[in-house]
């Protein structure tokens, strides 16, 4: 670009830019819209042809989903496992994130390596030996057992995210609290915690979504107490197709809400965790 662009060329560029943004948005939204149409169609209509391009707002598929044997239990299991994962990964991960952001200690690099290693490893594969281990300890096919595995998945993220969140709170604020009569603990609860709480909530939600979406380990580790993903996976080949779509819709729904809730933090979280 040697000369200044002519008004026409700039207009064309502008038009191209807006069109691409709209197309890319459509690329994300249209498939979701198709799923919505299928979910809100009567079971017969799901297999009809050609498809209507507007939802019929028939609750047949969803009510079939709700009454399908074992489905509600699977949904409850998913919520419980994800909730437990959320609590565990923050309770265990946040202290380490704090330690990484505030202290220089011997072995810090080794510790970071361990965290990164877990991120670079196909973790669901560990479900295989864990299945054996859990049978021995009686954790097999339990909510807690699966939540522990999902926590392993979520912990590297919890550590890195809380690390970057804590790094965003100036050390001076804590030091000021110490000089004003706080111990390390009270300085944390009175100064750091109130400031960090929204961020912690965001990373907790992130942990929830990781667990909610996980398929492989859930399928390997549960038999009677299936989570929703594991249940759908097992039923993929046999279930009627409208059940799949209704299940997929239920899977997607919390994701939409959660990403909206944490959208402010998504980028800040990765900005520092990257380096």
């Amino acid at each position, binding site marked *: 670009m040697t000369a200044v662009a002519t008004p026409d060329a700039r207009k064309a560029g502008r038009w191209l830019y807006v069109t691409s943004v709209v197309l890319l948005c459509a690329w994300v939204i249209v498939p979701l819209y198709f799923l919505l149409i299928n979910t809100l169609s009567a079971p017969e209509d799901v297999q009809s042809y050609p498809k209507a391009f507007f939802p019929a707002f028939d609750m047949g598929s969803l009510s079939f989903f709700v009454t399908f044997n074992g489905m509600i239990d699977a949904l409850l299991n998913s919520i419980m496992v994800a909730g437990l994962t959320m609590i565990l990964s923050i309770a265990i991960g946040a202290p380490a994130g704090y330690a990484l952001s505030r202290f220089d200690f011997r072995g810090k690099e080794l510790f970071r390596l361990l965290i990164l290693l877990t991120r670079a490893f196909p973790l669901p594969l560990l479900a295989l030996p864990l299945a054996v281990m859990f049978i021995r300890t009686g954790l097999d096919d339990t909510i807690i057992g699966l939540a522990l595995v999902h926590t392993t998945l979520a912990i590297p993220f919890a550590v890195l995210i809380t690390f970057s969140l804590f790094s965003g709170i*100036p050390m*001076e*604020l804590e*030091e*000021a*609290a*110490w*000089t*004003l*009569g*706080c*111990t390390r603990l*009270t300085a944390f609860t*009175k*100064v750091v915690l*109130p*400031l960090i709480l929204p961020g912690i909530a965001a990373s907790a939600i992130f942990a929830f979504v990781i667990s909610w979406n996980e398929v492989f380990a859930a399928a390997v580790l549960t038999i009677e107490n299936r989570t929703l993903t594991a249940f759908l996976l097992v039923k993929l080949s046999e279930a009627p197709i409208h059940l799949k779509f209704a299940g997929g819709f239920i899977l997607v729904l919390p994701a939409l809400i959660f990403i909206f809730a944490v959208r402010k933090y998504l980028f800040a979280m990765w900005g520092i965790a990257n380096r």
Partner: protein
Amino acid sequence: MAEIQIKNVAKKFGEYQALHDINLTISDREFMVLLGASGCGKTTLLRIICGLETATTGEVWIGGRRVDHLPPKDRGIAMVFQNYAVFPHLTVFENIGFGLRMQKLPNDEVTRRVERVAELMHIEMLLKRYSGELSGGQRQRVAVARALAMEPDVILMDEPLSNLDALLRMEMRAELKGVLAESNTTAVYVTHDQVEAMSMADRISVMHKGKIVQAASPIEVYRNPAAEFVAGFIGNPPMNFLPATATGNGQWRVAGQTFDGPDTEKTLKFAIRPEDMAPADTGLVAIAKVIEPLGAHLLVTCDVDGGMFRAVLDSDTTVKAGDRLTLAPQPDRVRWFDPETTLAVA
């Protein structure tokens, strides 16, 4: 009664020796400024007094009590931070009252003390605001008020004015000095700004490479620098140095001129402040290079015997680049330094 005694304090960060064997006594109600360039160890020393940093060796005593193993909250100190550290989630009132609440003082006592220091710092109209709604200068006032509200024995300040613009800094300097004088606390104040140090301090500790080079009153530090570093660091522009050779019986040759000096056999350096010279018939021969009119004075950078030399002359002096000047130093203002030890020689 809060005298601070620092005994043989040294600090190492890994292999890096940040402080070497520091000994310093700060008397009760004294305003002590720790002055030095960045990295000289002044902030580390302040943080050791505060308890935010632990000394590798040595002892810290405050008010006759050994405190180096106590956490900051048990040392009877308060601190003002460089970036103010005003808690963003609390109102100005709760910020100032934070320390008092930690001491579990009754509500009316907290309110009374917060209002008193807020008035003192002229921020009584800001008490309901949050930190995000304050200007830098106002935040600064909150930080000082918060420290004063603790009614501490010792108040520690880490470059508290360095983030303010020049005009505000000058205003706060005078105000802070007044407030602290009234509060009867011992103050330790870290800065790299020599004007701030000169104008506020009862005593200045000039620090360099982890050591206190000189601890004395501002005028003493200025007039009688204990070492070449102090002479070069304090004063703007700094002191001039010229090589000198002894000719015997306390006589020295400096750039072709003869001066009276210490009676010693060593080689010494001759030193004179730029403002302690005046044009005269005899004196050091200088070729003017750059003339900078500064309003009240004229700063002339010139060449004396092949080296750079500065003189601050009366603004009426007519001089232009290339002129030859003869500058006569005031005899009682000439100082001598030993280049080997870099220390002053009487």
